[in-house]
């Protein structure tokens, strides 16, 4: 490729720094690499991936690197981060004046500009040999220590049409669609879990936060990508999820619990298991915000349950980077990973609610987080004694995790329906008695468990040794919820191998501005 030797036009673009981006500024240390790209273009993604990791070294050696996106800045920053681009990121709005000024027909297009502001080289599409020559030219202009892009497949790939080169009518139609359909724009920005979201306008986010609260206050970093959970970002996720502002203290409590290192959200967020995060809400706040603990308590139909659970998952997926298929490597997932929030029916329950069991007062409102799998329904319309019912419930869980994986150390969560709970109430069974009976009921000789996936404990035992399904009665968590009719309880499988603890946090009607 021959040198173009043209004057590089000034860039009509915006970056995250308040200062204007100028050619003189970019070439202050020597040459500048400009890479024009767009989000939708696979060849742009290829160029960003191949060149991005090299930028840090190039910049240190005096070659500045700037990705010029034909997309909004928020999208540009996210795409650059995901691609591993370590250089500067700038954005140009429609009608893409910078692309027009540089005469772009397609993206990606790379330009090498020297300190006198002249274009030395231009590479169109992905062309590894030409990019290597471009870098060679930059090295010859003083930045000698420059790594060359690796010659890996594909060496060349045609680019996509630049938005600046589109027919004006088509460009106008595209811009109009984007401007008038906020919901589609949320998908374009990647601010979604796959379902439509509520656009987080400044007004909505401020209403979610409430007056006088510091949106910059940090709750900590969200695994796995360790994005910072400011109160503002938690509020954004609550808006996206569809929460009403009165739900927000519950969302904040859930976020605080999730970010406690004892909960090991990191492991849960990236595992190949289906693991989701179950939010159990206890105490007066259930009624204050209209959470459903009755009919269909684990299913659809209630805004508070669905959106609170979804807000926490959006925080993990967007702020934390734990998006399925990206850093979340779950083989199958389950629908509880869209959002999973249940309220206890403390009024129907014969027992103390979960938060009281965990040391809180009955008048406190508390969120408890448990890592767990999808629910398995347990039908029992025939048991006439609490022993028969407890035995049925316990053995329904015997295949949890894997048929022969005994014992389980992580918690199994049983959601007992009101009709089943009534039988235990009638016979005066305490929670602890039920838990111990279930624990004692389910055991097998080790010899029967040596098939397929099993535990070191089963291998180490004598064939006749009895092995329990759970390591202790405390691995059995009991809640009460559901409609008044129907004898269907459920058990939620464990999140095995995560070494996590159940974590509770009080719901504060006012939370501190800083932590």
């Amino acid at each position, binding site marked *: 490729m021959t040198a173009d030797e043209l004057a590089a036009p000034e860039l009509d673009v915006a970056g*995250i720094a308040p200062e204007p981006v100028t050619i003189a500024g970019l070439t202050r240390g020597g040459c500048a690499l400009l890479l024009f790209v767009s989000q939708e273009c696979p060849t742009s993604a290829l160029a960003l991936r191949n060149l*991005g*990791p090299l930028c*840090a*070294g190039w910049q240190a050696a005096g070659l500045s690197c700037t990705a010029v996106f034909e997309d*909004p*800045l*928020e999208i540009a*920053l*996210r795409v*650059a*981060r995901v691609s*591993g681009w*370590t250089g500067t*990121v700038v954005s140009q*709005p429609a009608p893409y004046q910078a692309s027009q000024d540089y005469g772009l027909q397609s993206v990606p297009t790379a330009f090498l500009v020297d300190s006198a502001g002249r274009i030395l080289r231009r590479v169109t599409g992905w062309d590894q040999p030409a990019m290597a020559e471009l870098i060679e030219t930059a090295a010859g202009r003083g930045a000698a220590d420059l790594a060359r892009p690796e010659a890996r497949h594909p060496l060349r790939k045609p680019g996509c049409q630049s938005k600046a080169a589109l027919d004006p009518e088509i460009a106008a139609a595209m811009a109009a669609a*984007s*401007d008038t359909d*906020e919901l589609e*724009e949320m998908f374009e*920005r990647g*601010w979604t879990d796959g379902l439509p979201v509520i*656009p*987080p*306008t*400044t007004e909505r*986010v401020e209403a979610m936060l409430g007056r006088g609260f510091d949106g910059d206050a940090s709750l900590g970093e969200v695994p796995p*990508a360790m*994005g*910072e959970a400011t109160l*503002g*970002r938690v*509020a*954004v*996720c609550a808006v*996206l999820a569809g929460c009403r502002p009165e739900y927000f203290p519950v969302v904040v409590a859930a976020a605080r619990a999730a970010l406690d290192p004892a909960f*090991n959200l*990191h*492991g849960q967020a990236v*595992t190949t298991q289906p693991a989701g995060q179950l939010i159990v809400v206890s105490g007066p706040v259930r009624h204050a915000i209209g959470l459903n603990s009755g009919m269909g308590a684990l299913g659809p139909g209630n805004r508070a349950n669905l959106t609170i659970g979804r807000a926490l998952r*959006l*925080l993990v997926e*967007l*702020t934390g980077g734990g998006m399925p298929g990206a850093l979340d490597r779950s083989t199958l997932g389950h629908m509880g990973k869209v959002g999973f929030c249940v309220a206890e029916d403390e009024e129907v329950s014969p027992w103390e609610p979960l938060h009281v069991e965990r040391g809180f007062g009955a008048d406190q409102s508390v969120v408890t987080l448990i890592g767990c799998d999808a629910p398995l329904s347990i039908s029992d319309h025939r048991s006439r004694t609490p022993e028969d019912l407890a035995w049925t419930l316990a053995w329904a869980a015997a295949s949890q995790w894997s048929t022969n994986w005994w014992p389980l150390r992580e918690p199994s969560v049983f959601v007992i329906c009101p009709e089943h709970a009534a039988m235990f109430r009638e016979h005066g069974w305490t929670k602890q008695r039920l838990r111990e009976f279930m624990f004692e009921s389910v055991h097998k000789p080790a010899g029967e468990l040596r098939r397929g996936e099993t535990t070191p404990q089963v291998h180490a035992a004598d064939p006749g040794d009895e092995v329990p399904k759970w390591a202790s009665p405390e691995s059995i968590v009991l809640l009460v919820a559901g409609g008044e009719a129907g004898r269907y309880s459920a058990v939620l499988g464990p999140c095995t*191998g*995560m*070494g996590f603890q159940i974590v509770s946090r009080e719901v504060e009607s006012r939370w501190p501005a800083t932590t």
Partner: protein
Amino acid sequence: MAGDYVSPFDERVRQAESLAPRPVSLAGLRVTLLDIRKNRGAEFLDRIETLLQAAGATTARTGKEIFSKPAALSLIDQTTAVADAVVEALAD
């Protein structure tokens, strides 16, 4: 429109860590084998350790608390203080 929305992303741009230079030779190299505590990972490391020793490397073994949590910073510090290279094994 773009300025009217608040982003859920942490937009900080982080500099990628550059890779350490590849060792020229295994002879005399101090290699720590890190067991992440996944099922049967130790068996894999046993084999790697034998091969490394045959190539002249000096080996040591260490491990994470549990596979599903990131390595503790103290473990990383202790390991990098005594090793020229680290081999980390996945398993299952």
